């Protein structure tokens, strides 16, 4: 659907009395950052009193669009209109003054200040001496919160409250600045089910006050419960905008992932070959992996020689599962057994010793050490094994590094070039080399081909194939559904931090995956928690 149409369609609608007027509009907005086009000709219309969902996978441009709407970024092209008048926000403050308030994923208030101070930060009521009128401030803050059904001592430091209550405070602040539009970026990601209910009640309250809400979330149950209309972004482009009731879940999921339900192909353009023959005996068995808000009793097995795909939408717990297996995420409970031996303490070092290697999702923050050379980045994990009495052996390092630079075709001017100077694809290969030189039994790959060029992508995919053929157990996480389906021999699908289903053999296909992703489920609703019945999750597993 072409965005200009959406923009052109707006004016005639104004004449229709049934359609409320537009409050905030983005028309043909474009925004580019060095090397990426974050938004390309995106239009969005927020009507008075509507709850508008904004959805899309990682990198779809949701955050950028929000930042443009709230004055954090300025659009390179296109324009914003507020009540039909063109506006331009130089700073977030200006957007706020104009009635556009934002509640970010992580509450960004001042934790050490009192609740009341936070609500009135920057616009405190003053007494005759131009000092803060504390009694009045506390009274008004308490009234405001009571209106949202929150009873908390407004004199207490904000940081001493639960995350959910903090979010309510942020919401109270947003509304009390006479907001006409409230933007919520994944407000429920850290909330308990009970708190989610309170939030929805408050959103209902906003709705009745004719305030427009832009609601960003990837929990489908939530969207269908509270949202009127939605806009889908993908790769920085507008994919769809319209009434939510006109879309079923399957259509929505396929739109987010960029897959037509009908058009399901096997063996297309990825570098993966045919399936592998896996051993019967699993090399890794994980049971009952649980962590508050993130993982709910996840269990899976990995066999030597297979590629297990981990499917799921953003926030479904894929990365968390991989990290948990690699000992990098503290768990509330759960066990990991490798080759028959249970890991007693789940730490990164223990997992690596047991032969589990994790290629993390965020290459920059968790992978490369940019100031060190290619050589040192490759041998980082293997260094103790390449040393004698704590003194590193350059000769041994050089041998290993040469082997892997050749095998993975790492393009660098020399092994001594700094990793920070390499392209994304080569950095990724360096990280792969870091893990492969440990000769692991289990390789966990979290988005191995994200942000790397097409050539490197195919090379990495072919390598994964080859490694599985050599008998390695590979866990593959990818938001690229084609890569996932073609690369994996078997798929475990997560939803809301719990296993939602498993696809094996001929059922490993895009249509089947979409079906599981779109299915109703307890996990997709109020997030994961110990409160929701685990038996329900178990039932889902059969799906």
């Amino acid at each position, binding site marked *: 659907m072409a965005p200009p149409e959406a923009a052109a369609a707006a004016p005639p609608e104004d004449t229709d009395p049934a359609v409320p007027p537009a409050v905030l509009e983005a028309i043909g907005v474009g925004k580019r950052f060095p090397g990426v086009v974050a938004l390309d000709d995106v239009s969005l219309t927020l009507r008075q009193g509507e709850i508008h969902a904004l959805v899309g996978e990682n990198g779809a441009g949701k955050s950028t669009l929000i930042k443009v709407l709230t004055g954090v970024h300025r659009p390179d092209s296109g324009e914003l209109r507020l009540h039909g008048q063109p506006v331009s926000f130089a700073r977030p403050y200006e957007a706020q003054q104009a009635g556009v308030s934002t509640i970010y994923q992580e509450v960004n208030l001042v934790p050490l200040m009192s609740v009341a101070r936070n609500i009135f930060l920057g616009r405190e009521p003053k007494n005759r001496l131009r000092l803060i009128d504390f009694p009045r401030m506390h009274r008004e803050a308490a009234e405001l919160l009571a209106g949202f059904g929150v009873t908390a001592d407004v004199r207490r430091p904000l940081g001493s409250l639960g995350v959910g209550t903090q979010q309510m405070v942020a919401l109270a602040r947003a509304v009390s600045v006479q907001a006409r539009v409230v933007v919520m970026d994944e407000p429920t990601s850290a909330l308990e089910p009970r708190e989610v209910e309170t939030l929805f009640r408050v959103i209902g309250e906003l709705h009745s006050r004719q305030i427009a809400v832009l609601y960003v979330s990837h929990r489908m149950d939530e969207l269908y419960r509270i949202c009127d209309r939605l806009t889908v972004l993908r790769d920085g482009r507008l994919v769809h905008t319209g009434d939510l009731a006109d879309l079923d879940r399957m259509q929505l999921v396929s739109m987010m992932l960029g897959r037509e339900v009908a058009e399901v192909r096997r063996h297309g353009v990825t570098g993966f070959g045919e399936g592998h023959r896996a051993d019967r005996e699993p090399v890794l068995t994980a049971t009952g992996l649980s962590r508050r808000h993130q993982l709910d009793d996840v269990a899976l097995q990995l066999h030597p020689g297979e590629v297990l795909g981990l499917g799921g939408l953003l926030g479904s717990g894929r990365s968390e599962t991989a990290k948990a297996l690699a000992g990098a995420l503290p768990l509330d409970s759960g066990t990991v057994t490798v080759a028959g031996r249970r890991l007693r303490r789940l730490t*990164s070092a223990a997992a*690596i010793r047991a032969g589990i290697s994790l290629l993390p999702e965020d290459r920059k923050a*968790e992978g490369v050490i940019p*100031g*060190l050379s290619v050589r040192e980045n490759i041998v980082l*994990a293997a260094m103790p094994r390449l040393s004698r009495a704590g003194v*590193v052996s350059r000769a041994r390092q050089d041998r290993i590094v040469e082997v892997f630079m050749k095998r993975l075709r790492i393009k660098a001017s020399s092994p001594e070039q700094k990793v920070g100077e390499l392209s994304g694809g080569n950095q990724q290969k360096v990280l792969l080399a870091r893990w492969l030189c440990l000769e692991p039994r289990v390789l966990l790959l979290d988005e191995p081909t994200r942000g790397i060029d097409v050539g490197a992508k195919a090379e990495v995919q072919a390598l994964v194939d080859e490694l599985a053929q050599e008998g390695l157990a590979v866990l593959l996480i990818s938001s690229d559904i084609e890569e996932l389906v073609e690369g994996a021999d078997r798929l475990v699908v997560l939803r809301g931090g719990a296993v939602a289903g498993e696809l094996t053999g001929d059922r490993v296909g895009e249509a089947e995956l979409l079906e599981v992703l779109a299915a109703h489920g307890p996990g997709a609703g109020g997030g994961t928690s110990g409160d929701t019945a685990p038996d329900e999750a178990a039932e889902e597993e059969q799906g």
Partner: protein
Amino acid sequence: MSQLALRPGRWAGRLASPAWFQRYGVYAAVAVLLLFNAAFTDHFLTVDNLRTQLVQVAPVVIVALGMALVIGTEGVDLSVGSTMALAAALLPLYLGYGLVPALLVALLAGVVVGVVNGTLVAVVGLQPIVATLALFVGGRGLALVIADGQLKQIANPDLLSLGSGQVAGVPVVVLIAGVLALLVAGIVHRTTFGRQLVAVGGNRAAAGLAGLPVRRVLTGVYVLCGVLAALSGVLATARLTASDPSALGNLMELSAITAVVVGGTPLTGGSVRVLGTVTGALLMQLLRATLVKHDLPDSTAQMAQAAIILVAVYVARERRSR
């Protein structure tokens, strides 16, 4: 940006670039200062004067070596001056058993300080500046309690010879500093510990995920820094011929940080420049000596040092913002 820097035929640009300046600026500055003195200052480039300068800078160099390691992990250790005082306070109590036991006790104090700092940073997770502030304040207090607040004359000939002795015309203090610099350079570049230290400083999350013993490395770094500071305290006491826990090592943490920063080690961690640190300490010492020789008051020297620190920090900032 990086690709630009790699293209050949850009030498002129690179010479003046902040990156070049951060790397080699300190050596250039020392060279310029020496040339200036050779031309304009009488009796500067004499063996006696240079020996004096080196003797004076040695304790700073030793402390700065430890500080460079800590800063390489994106940390800082404010407690080094107090550690020196602690070592100085403990020395006279055990000198009766001979130099070696007294020295060991003093160094043990450095180990203890390092373990406390390292635990606070690595296990408790405090910010280094806060964690080491505790012993910055408390360490000197403890030293004064141990010494009863008194200055004590040192009569032990072994200890005194450590301060004033020479080997082949080179003062023992300078020799020790030199050997330690080589040792620390060896640790940083050749040992697993050293490389892990740099990796932890460069990207702690990545180092942790790669299974590096992050806590052990961090604790080890603070222990090394504490031991070096304690040793510096012992040597400074030997030079003074008196144990003076109330004054010894005052502002040493700042001199050490200055040497490290001026030497081109970024405060953001991930790199340790040992030779740069030694040269940085030397630069500050020579600058001060030069100005004093030209009858400028100490206050002028302080302002000149401040200017150099600003330049060093500015250059580092430029580099980071690329």
